[in-house]
């Protein structure tokens, strides 16, 4: 953002409405911190006079936003006074949902005994089904369940060290579709290896 500057400010270009606004703002500035150092900011003698008069008048006790709502700071677009306010209308907003979808989403770990009984039974049934043919994995321990991980993003799943969270990247879906109802089940085998299953639960 370029630095604003008061140099070259043409007083004659400031109309009465703008001067009212200027007074309001300087009254406010005076209330805020007491004055004289701020007067020196002004570049012309005329303004210093106006500000001094403002200080002696009744304090408004309103904030710049309030002054703006009341029209005190709402000035014409081309006014030099624009240099003093922070123009809300100039807030440039950019939209980029794809950027946000590249950011990994974290799912917290749940333990098997935290699941509702029916859901836990369904999970164990599917685990046994899928691991039944694995000789070395007769003993499996469920070490974490992570809800609602879309299967479209399966390729991006990362289990955090410590297993506190599983992360996936929404942009990995590729087509913007995300199917609900799948949970990632992390299993530890007898040999200490970690296995992951994506199961449809519930």
């Amino acid at each position: 953002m370029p630095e604003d500057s008061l140099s070259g400010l043409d007083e004659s270009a400031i109309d009465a409405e703008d001067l009212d606004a200027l007074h309001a703002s300087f009254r406010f500035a005076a209330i805020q911190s007491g004055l004289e150092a701020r007067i020196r900011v002004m570049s012309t003698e005329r303004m210093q006079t106006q500000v001094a008069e403002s200080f002696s008048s009744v304090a408004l006790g309103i904030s710049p936003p309030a002054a703006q709502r009341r029209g005190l700071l709402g000035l014409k677009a081309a006014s030099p006074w624009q240099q003093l306010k922070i123009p809300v209308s100039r807030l440039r907003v950019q939209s980029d949902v794809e950027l946000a979808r590249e950011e990994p989403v974290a799912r917290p770990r749940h333990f098997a005994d935290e699941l509702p009984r029916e859901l836990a039974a369904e999970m164990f049934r599917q685990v046994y089904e899928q691991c039944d043919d694995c000789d070395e994995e007769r003993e499996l321990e469920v070490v974490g369940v992570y809800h609602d991980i879309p299967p479209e993003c399966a390729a991006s799943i990362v289990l955090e060290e410590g297993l506190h969270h599983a992360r996936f990247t929404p942009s990995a879906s590729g087509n913007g579709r995300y199917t609900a109802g799948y949970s990632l089940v992390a299993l530890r085998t007898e040999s200490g290896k970690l296995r992951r299953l994506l199961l449809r639960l519930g």
Partner: protein
Amino acid sequence: MQIISYLDIAHLRADSYAGGLLSVNELGIPVEFIHSEQIRPTDLQASLYGSTLGRYLLLDVIGKGLAEASQQKGAPLVVASPDLLPLAQRVRRPVCCLQRTENRPLSDSGATDWLNETELQVQLNETRSPLLFRIHSRENFQAERTVPGFSECARSFDVLEPLSRIRRILDSLQRLQAAQGA
């Protein structure tokens, strides 16, 4: 579709600020992300606005600006800091700030417990501690209508987590801009 919006404003180097607003669906997947460019008040503006400058920038310029630019105007807005709660006076959507607690779980999922006029505990998960909702006013937040949406989303994801995503995105945008400027 249940949507929750999240707002964070980062105080960057050299007294500049940038804000991001992320809206996610009931799976926590982003449906909208908007962010402001960096705003840096001039010395003159800092002098004029005095100690109210930060509040004005956060609330009236960036916070309100992003909330009004969002397409998800009816979604509840979770703000990253209690300092942003006065946005409730400036936008027409429920505004709250969430905080974890270590309190004993309330009776059921969805149960609420008002601690005072601006704080309530909500049980979003059956087995974990309730979350503390800090609000600006009951009129703005409308707990009876707003809390069920949070309960629905909490079945899939940690409703505080998207705030950390915004901060990471803002940090990466800042690094990107710094690299482009170098």
